[in-house]
């Protein structure tokens, strides 16, 4: 019989062991999955590694793939640390990309110095507005935010589908692809060292989230909200306002993922390039232990996996869908292993005496 004893804080050794166990179990499960497909395990994982880190170009692409995941991962951190279950990152990424694209249409012909900041601001506002809407639904109308954010994901994805599939934003003459025309050069995110502006922004965002959560009154309120909202209320904090703030920040971060993909890499808006960034970001944030720097590390790893997966699916018989499956398995093992850090396990007999 195993008994659980809560403990206040976990030692870093327990945390490290939990993560190593989870990663080992996740790898083992991936080996089983590859075996199912009938492909050679070494070939499959080798190709995955090669595609992710094989040469300078591969590493650059892996970094680029990590950028949006840093943003959606941080979005998860901000919300979840506040005890708000925002799982609308997917929709907020879409909303951000759509608001940014809308702004680029309004400012057609504007110089880059105006165009780029305007697009980024518009998209941040779009993502924040959608998330804040769910926060208000929660504080005013008692609608559980898991439900409202999830349902809005579907609604927003259909909205983009309407705008692109024969709707007003579709590229003239394009029927096979549901996408907008290419975005003018002035709206594209400038490049620095082979990566677009999103890369330094992602680093900045990580540091900013770490700073805000760890060292500011707002961060104190956010953590308090996740920890003990009643105490927070007695302290005189306007909890409803804090919830809206947390959600708006979370939505704004997700929106930046949409901007990165559309204005930094693909230069046109289409659903395929945004699909899954939000959901993967939830995994990234949770595997990063809801810590901003941990999330950055997890995002880099997941970006590499996503990039390597393409190479692997071309080179071997293993479908690229191995990666989302692997990520899901890893997440559940991390969640399970985290129990080691939250409880002290006592092995003993049922009557309470420890054997």
């Amino acid at each position, binding site marked *: 019989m195993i*008994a659980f004893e809560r403990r206040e804080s976990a030692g870093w050794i327990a945390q490290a062991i939990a993560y190593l166990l989870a990663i080992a179990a996740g790898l083992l499960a991936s080996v089983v999955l590859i075996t199912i497909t009938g492909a050679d395990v070494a070939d499959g994982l080798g190709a995955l590694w090669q595609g992710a880190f094989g040469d300078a170009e591969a590493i650059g692409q892996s970094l680029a793939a990590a950028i949006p995941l840093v943003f959606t991962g941080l979005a998860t951190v901000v919300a979840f640390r506040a005890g708000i279950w925002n799982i609308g990152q997917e929709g907020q990424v879409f909303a951000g990309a759509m608001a940014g694209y809308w702004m680029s249409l309004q400012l057609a012909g504007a110089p880059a110095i105006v165009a780029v900041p305007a697009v980024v601001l518009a998209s941040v506002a779009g993502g924040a507005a959608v998330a804040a809407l769910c926060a208000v639904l929660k504080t005013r109308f008692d609608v559980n935010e898991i*439900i409202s954010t*999830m*349902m809005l994901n*579907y609604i927003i994805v259909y909205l983009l589908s309407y705008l692109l599939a024969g709707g007003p934003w579709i590229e003239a003459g394009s029927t096979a692809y549901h996408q907008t025309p290419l975005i003018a050069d002035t709206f594209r995110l400038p490049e620095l060292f082979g990566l677009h502006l999103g890369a330094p922004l992602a680093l900045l965002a990580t540091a900013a989230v770490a700073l805000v959560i760890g060292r500011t009154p707002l961060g104190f309120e956010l953590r308090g909200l996740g920890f003990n909202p009643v105490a927070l209320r007695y302290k005189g904090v306007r909890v409803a306002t804090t919830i809206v703030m947390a959600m708006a920040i979370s939505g704004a971060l997700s929106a930046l993922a949409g901007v990165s993909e559309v204005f930094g890499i693909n230069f046109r808006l289409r659903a395929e390039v945004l699909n899954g960034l939000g959901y993967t970001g939830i995994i990234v944030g949770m595997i990063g232990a809801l810590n901003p720097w941990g999330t950055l590390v997890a995002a880099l790893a997941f970006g590499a996996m996503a990039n390597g997966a393409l190479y692997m699916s071309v080179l071997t018989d293993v*479908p690229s869908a191995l990666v989302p*499956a692997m990520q899901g398995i890893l997440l559940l093992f991390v*969640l*399970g292993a985290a129990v080691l850090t939250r*409880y002290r396990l006592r092995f003993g007999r049922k009557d309470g005496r420890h054997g």
Partner: protein
Amino acid sequence: MAELLTPAILLSILSASVGAATIILLAALGELLTERAGIWNMGVEGTMLCGCLAAYVAMCETSSPITAAGAAMLAGVAAGLVIGFLTVSLKVDHFVTGLGFNLLASGLTLFLFRSYTAGGKPAGYATIDRWPIPFLSEIPGIGPILFNQHLLTYAALLLVPLVSVFLARTRPGLECRAAGENPEFLEAKGISVAKRQYGALLVGSALTALGGCFMMLAFANEFRPDISGGRGWLAIVAVIAGNWRPFRTMIAVIVFAVLDSLAVHAQGMGVAIPYQFFLMLPYAASILLLAVVRTRSGQPARLGIPFLRR
């Protein structure tokens, strides 16, 4: 909108709604059982998806709806075991577990589907036949709506009173509710809370997966990634809006189902409003429903709170 409401079309929409309701109703009843036992299972969507894939593969391999239903329910039990191990045994937060499980199911079903179809897609299968009930199905109006449906639809509708009676009038039902309301009491009586919660989760998840199976058998003849399309989430909303009561939950399910079939019919009839807006309706309605129907008196007292033995 006027042409939407001719009697023939209305009949067709309502009849389709009862079919569409079956999917969500099975899942909602499963979730209701689970939640009454205190487990706030957010993994309904993922569980349904597992049921869809299992049913699809079984149908392609054996062409037997019964095997497909069995395979789906087994997949549901497996999903319930995973969720139960994390929530009941390891005391991981229920929301985190459910969200994690959904992400796992989405990735894993996609991978397994791609692996299964890697050597070329198997030929589809025919959707299952309806089972009109003699005489009753000939009643004008409600006959074709209620009594010309699939076998599983009748079963799902019958399950509503059955679940209600099970919870209210039987000993296992009482124990199940006690696990959600007052687990210390069960424990003091020497009854294992964990066993009741596992039981509710396994049965509930099997029902949810059966809902997924029905979707594959009656509405689709091919699996698609994330084919469940939020119906698992609608089931959760139905339980909340139904104040954790079987009959009220069914009413919420029917609202979603009518909107769901409205979208299908509108697409087919070339209504001027773009079809995407119809597709949004059930999701928008779910938010609205939660904002308007705000009675939560039926919510189990310990719903979603991991039970720690002393």
